[in-house]
Every structure is written in C-alpha cells, then in structure tokens.
C-alpha cells in the first residue's frame, strides 16, 4: 500500500457498502472494490452481478471447495446464493446497458472534480485494460470509486481534470479513499467524511483539486 494512513481497504469498502440499498443489483470491479461483498448487509438483500453473467453470487469458496466452472469478474471462485441465475456475456452486458445495475464500484487511477474518471490506461502505457468498466461506468445508475488517496509516488488521485485517458465522463457520484469520503456535486468535489487520524489540512494537501469543505467534517461512518 502506498500510504498506510487512514482507512484500511476493507474499511473503505465497508463505507461504500453502507450506501447500498435493499434490493440493489451491485457490480463490483476487480481489485479493492471486491471487498464490498465482505460487508454484513444484515436484512438488506443485495444482488451481486458479475460481468461474466453471474447474477446473485455469494461469498468466496473455501480452499479446496472451488467450483472450477464458477468465478466472479476477478476470476475468484465464488458461491451462488439461492435465486442465482446465469446468462451469457451479451445478456450480461445487455442488463448493464439497459440500466439494471443500481451501483457499480470501480477502482481508478484518477477521479476529476467534474465526475470524469480514468481506470484503464496508465500514463505512457501501450494498450490498456478496459474489461467491462466503460459499459458499467456509462450505464450504471450510480458509480462509486474506491482508491488510495495518492499514488505510490505521492501524487494526488483526486484532480481538476484527468491527465490520462478517461473511462467515462461526468459519471462518478461517490469516492472513498483511505483519507475520506468525497461526493461529486454540481458545484464540485465535496469532502463529506474524514478518516480517523487524518486532518482536513492533510486531505487538502493530498488532493489535486479544490474541495468543498464544511466547517465541521464528520468522521467516516463505521459499521453500526
């Protein structure tokens, strides 16, 4: 991890998972976002969709119990919840494009204050890894991003404008980082909640764009 300050990756994903509403169909990107499925949703029914056509997958399988025909989008072996169904790739993306996904949680290299984000191609890279991100970002009802506050070299990932090729424009609603929870609003990027042990000045110093900051910033909500 580039910066151990603030929230752990699981705490970051727990905070986003609290925003999922009962009955939502949720698509988790590979990497940090997969941790959202570890959250205890209690009585809420959350339906996890994977881009490879699995609707209603459950927890990861235990070692030695993997079903070799069944993986999630990250290639991890998962279980199926009661009521699960499986479709082929065109139908899987058909349901994405037609707006059946309530929220997608994706990783990112950069998120801009206008809701643009970039996650498929690093600076100077030849080729890229789009996977399902462009379809999901363009079509999900909500787009949440989970990423570290700064790069390995300490450069902010929250920026005025993306310097690398974008995945989609103006789509991000919420961003969780190890430093806090940020919301993209019509007026710009707002700091909504701050991680324990992190000061507002530290957040500002590690952010590459203007932030709307209320006089009192509440701490990041933890599992209740």
């Amino acid at each position: 991890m580039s910066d151990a300050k603030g929230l752990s990756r699981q705490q970051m994903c727990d905070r986003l998972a609290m925003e999922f509403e009962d009955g939502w169909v949720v698509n988790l990107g590979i990497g940090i976002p997969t941790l959202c499925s570890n959250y205890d949703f209690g009585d809420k029914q959350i339906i996890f969709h994977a881009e490879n056509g699995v609707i209603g997958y459950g927890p990861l399988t235990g070692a030695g119990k993997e079903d070799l025909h069944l993986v999630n989008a990250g290639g991890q072996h998962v279980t199926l919840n009661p009521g699960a169904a499986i479709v082929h790739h065109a139908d899987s993306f058909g349901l994405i494009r037609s707006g059946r996904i309530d929220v997608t949680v994706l990783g990112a290299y950069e998120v801009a204050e206008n809701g643009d984000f970039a996650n498929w191609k690093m600076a100077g890279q030849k080729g890229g890894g789009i996977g399902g991100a462009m379809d999901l970002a363009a079509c999900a009802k909500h787009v949440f991003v989970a990423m570290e506050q700064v790069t390995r070299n300490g450069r902010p990932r929250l920026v005025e404008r993306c310097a690398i090729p974008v995945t989609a424009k103006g789509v991000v609603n919420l961003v969780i980082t190890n430093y806090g929870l940020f919301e993209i609003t019509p007026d710009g990027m707002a700091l909504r909640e701050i991680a324990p042990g992190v000061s507002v000045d530290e957040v500002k110093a590690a952010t590459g764009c203007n932030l709307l900051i209320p006089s009192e910033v509440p701490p990041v909500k933890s599992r209740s």
Partner: protein
Amino acid sequence: MPKSKVFASFADAVSDIPDGSVIGFGGFAVVGMPINLYKALAEQGAKRITCVSNGTRGGSTMPSDAPTMEWLIGNDQVSKVICSFTAPTRASQKLVFSEYYEKGLIQAELVPQGTLAERLRAAGAGIPAFYTPAAVGTELAEGRETRVFNGREYLLEEALPLDYAFIRAWQADSFGNLRFRRSQRNFNPLMAMAAKVTVVEVEEDILPSGAIDPDDVHLPGIYVQRMVKVPPPPEGWWPQRPGELAKQEGERSAR
C-alpha cells in the same frame, strides 16, 4: 446420413484452418477457455491469425505452462488481437503479447467488454451495426460516428463476424447441441453464433443425439460443426483448483 461432427483428435479438428483466419476464442478467467484447441492450433501452425477474445491470456488459476493465446503469439502466428484487455491486469504480470505489441510486431484493437460481446452477438444475429453508450467521450470514440437518441450520445459499433470459433462446453450431444456449466457460458455461445465454423472441446462424454432435452439446450447444434472430447489429464488440459495449482507449480520449480 450426415458426416459426424465428432472428431477423433484436436489435431484433426483444426488441420484445415488456413492462414489469415479470424478466430474467436471463448472463455473468461480460465472458465470455458478452449485450452486444448489453443495447443492444437499452436501445433498446426496457421499464420497471420486475428484472435478475438476477452484477453490475451487466461487468469491466475491457469497453470503457467498451459496453452493460451500467448503460445500462438510467441509462435509468430498472430497478426492482430481484438480484446477488452491488451495490457496486464497486474503490474507483476508479464505477457508475451506485450513484448510483441511494444515492438510493433502485432496489432491490437481494444474494445470495451460489453461492446465486444454485442459485436459478436450482432454478427450472429444478422445485424451489421448498432449504437452503444459505452466509450462515448473517451479516446476510443475519437473520430468515430456518434448519434444522439433521446438526448443521449451513442457510438456506432460494427458487427464482428468470425471465420472460426474455438469454444469449450460441458455437455454435448452428437448433433452438437451444447450445455455450459455455471460461468462457463460467458462468450462461448456468442463466438459460435458469430462464426462460420465452430469447433468445440467437450468436457463430458458426447451424448447420443436427443439426450439433451430441447428446453435445456444453451447453444443449438446448427451452430456447431466439430467436436472433440477432452481426454483426461495429462493428455487433455483441464482447469485446476488454486491450491492444487500452487502445489504443482511448487513441484515444477523444485525440479
């Protein structure tokens, strides 16, 4: 009596694949990947192939020495790939593809995954082109035709027909009716429907025609021309449990 669709070996099933073919390979993160057909095509040696697939390798549960598209690329058999991943998904991952791409020895067309699936579906459905919201406003859409419907901008994408589809299925009958298990379906039926000739590696013994209930067929046999039963390991390639794989890789590196 029509000619049997069941071939005795993978070598037989791919013997006539000509140079310059456009071949689609099913599979997603190892599951449903036509591992044995990759090997057969590497041995057959056809050149200037265009490979259509989700990515250029397979996934972490694939044994490191398993046949994948990387074998074909390393054999100088591939002139172009059309994929949703043309870069490693992890910084630590080294791809034969990347070496070739950086040296300009191979072309690549990077396509959003849903667009790739729909371009194949369109080819199999007699639709020459369609509009999608994916990739609008990105580098991929630069200089291309877009159109506004109901106030929203969409990007024109064309169908992607294939000469051959190489796929893997769980069950088959002798007519070529197929069933896939769990997430094995992924791109496999779409590749078959987009192709002139579909070659299938089948996991279970091929059943007599009619043994699969018509309501349970995932891909009708009219899309399937050639089938080969995957032999047990080590002759045939099968995905492995991650634990068993780690053990095998350990034994291999200890040797």
